[in-house]
């Protein structure tokens, strides 16, 4: 009796889900309309990358620990943005969504590389060229000092300080990190203390 009941409902669920899926597939297969939409989506995707590339790269430089290069991480982030682009519903701000993906990918990168000993996807269509405005030695040393000090922080604190340094308000940081604004404020107080204590002698 119970088996029959379960079977009946499983069949019904299957029917409904099939109906929904087929409707979705047929709706998506309308030739030119689909092509135009895809083209438009690609353009938006390109724009997202152009607008956010500096932000993503800054984060990647902090999280890239040898043998992972910042460029590898950057490409991995781009790949994940592309993968989840179709599921972006526009509920949050686009930069918030990009930050979330970048931080997730960067946070997982170390574990992923250790576990799979894998190489990242190398995309030839993304090129990294040394810029004409390359920072001088002094600036490079200062950056190294900052990077070293940030690396001393806990993982959760690292994410917060990276967003804070990008001039994001607590409200937005809270949305990205899934914490409350109060929690962020408290953490930032501690992070500022630690960071200043670590970096001040190095900058002098």
């Amino acid at each position, binding site marked *: 009796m119970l088996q029959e009941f379960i079977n009946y*409902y499983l069949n*019904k*669920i*299957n*029917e*409904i889900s*099939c*109906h929904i*899926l*087929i409707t979705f*597939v047929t709706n998506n297969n309308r030739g030119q309309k689909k092509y135009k939409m895809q083209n438009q989506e*690609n353009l938006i*995707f*390109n724009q997202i*990358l*152009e607008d956010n*590339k*500096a*932000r993503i*790269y*800054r984060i990647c*430089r902090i999280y890239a620990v040898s043998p992972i290069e910042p460029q590898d991480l*950057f490409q991995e982030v*781009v*790949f994940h943005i*592309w*993968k989840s682009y179709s599921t972006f519903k526009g509920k949050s701000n686009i930069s918030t969504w990009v930050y979330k993906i970048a931080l997730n990918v960067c946070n997982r990168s170390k574990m992923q590389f250790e576990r799979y000993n894998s190489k990242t*996807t190398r*995309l*030839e*269509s*993304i*090129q*990294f*060229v*040394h*810029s004409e*405005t*390359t*920072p001088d030695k002094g*600036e490079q040393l*200062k*950056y190294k000092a*900052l990077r070293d000090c940030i690396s001393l922080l806990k993982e959760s604190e690292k994410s917060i300080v990276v967003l804070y*340094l*990008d*001039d994001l308000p607590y409200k937005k940081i809270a949305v990205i990190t899934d914490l409350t604004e109060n929690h962020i404020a408290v953490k930032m107080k501690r992070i*500022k203390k630690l*960071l*200043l204590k670590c*970096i*001040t002698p190095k*900058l002098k």
Partner: protein
Amino acid sequence: MLKQEEREAWQEIKEIWGKSSQGEKISFQFSKLINELNNSMSQWEKDAVKSDLIKVKKSWDKYKGNVSQWEKDAVSKDLTRISKLFKIFLKKLKRKN
């Protein structure tokens, strides 16, 4: 540390941070990029999508036109009832814990 000094140090940190992406110029070849991204989807993902589509097609042939609106409504009503009961059950379970 004095507050003024703190502020200045923090300002310097922010400047260092802001300049950290200037060393490298990132350029995209967008015409290639989409193709490359599509191709870098793993074989496992491609196989999974293929097998799902085959399953969907098969089951659709079986049920095509056989499900009336009334049946769909009835099932969805039943499902909402079941999920409500399940939620009540979970709430009670939480309270006991």
